[in-house]
């Protein structure tokens, strides 16, 4: 699924990454705890989070994640956008809550990035 399809599905606002809309995303993970995210590595992933601080972008970068979808209408801070631009990680924001955002993407065929522990 391309980032632009994720934007459409989540009716999201793009804060950074207009030129990344054609990047292909193969899997997703969702969490507000960064070490939880860092425990499961998959290629070309989307990070869905309700957490909104610079470490979300750092975490995404360490994992080579290409897109962060903030939920519950969270707006990225300038600190976050600065790192995102440098690292070319798209940041989008959706008014949906976490559960709904995940459900919508799952229904559209986006795979989970982890397996059962």
């Amino acid at each position, binding site marked *: 699924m391309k980032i632009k399809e994720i934007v459409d599905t989540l009716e999201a606002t793009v804060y950074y990454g207009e030129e990344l809309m054609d990047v292909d995303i193969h899997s997703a993970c969702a969490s*507000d*705890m*960064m*070490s*939880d995210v*860092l*425990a499961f*590595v998959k290629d070309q992933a989307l990070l869905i*989070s309700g*957490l909104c*601080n*610079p*470490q*979300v972008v*750092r*975490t995404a*970068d*360490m*994992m*080579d994640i290409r897109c962060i979808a903030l939920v519950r209408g969270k707006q990225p801070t300038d*600190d976050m956008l600065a790192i995102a631009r440098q690292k070319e990680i798209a940041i989008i924001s959706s008014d949906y809550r976490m559960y709904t955002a995940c459900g919508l993407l799952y229904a559209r065929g986006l795979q989970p990035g982890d397996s059962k522990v």
Partner: protein
Amino acid sequence: MSGLHLEFDVAGNNFVSAGSASDEVKKTLKMLGVDPVAVRKVAIAMYEGEINMVIHAGGGKASVDIDTDKVKIVLADEGPGIPDIALAMKDGYSTAPDAIRDLGFGAGMGLPNMKKYTDEMKIDSTVGVGTTVTMVVNLR
């Protein structure tokens, strides 16, 4: 080949700069053409350790040695130390206060992640003196 040596001061309790040492190391490894899977392992393990120094120990020093066959990361702080290392290594064990949890850390998964992504890991810690974490990721 003689390796590359990098050193960083990691500022305590600065949540914006936290992770910048790991970022530098990741960039350097990428530039050197190191296998992306190994780069990611180093990046994640060092980032977890760097964050631990920031939130649990008031900062510290990171030193990284890059050789053709391995990357060695040493994270040394003069924080409170870890009283029970075996307990700290357990999945889900955390002493992080709620304020840290609100920032997205404190799941008690950092040390287990560091162990998982590295080939060798050793923790030396003395209560009241500090903690040194040494990690090695093999490149071949």
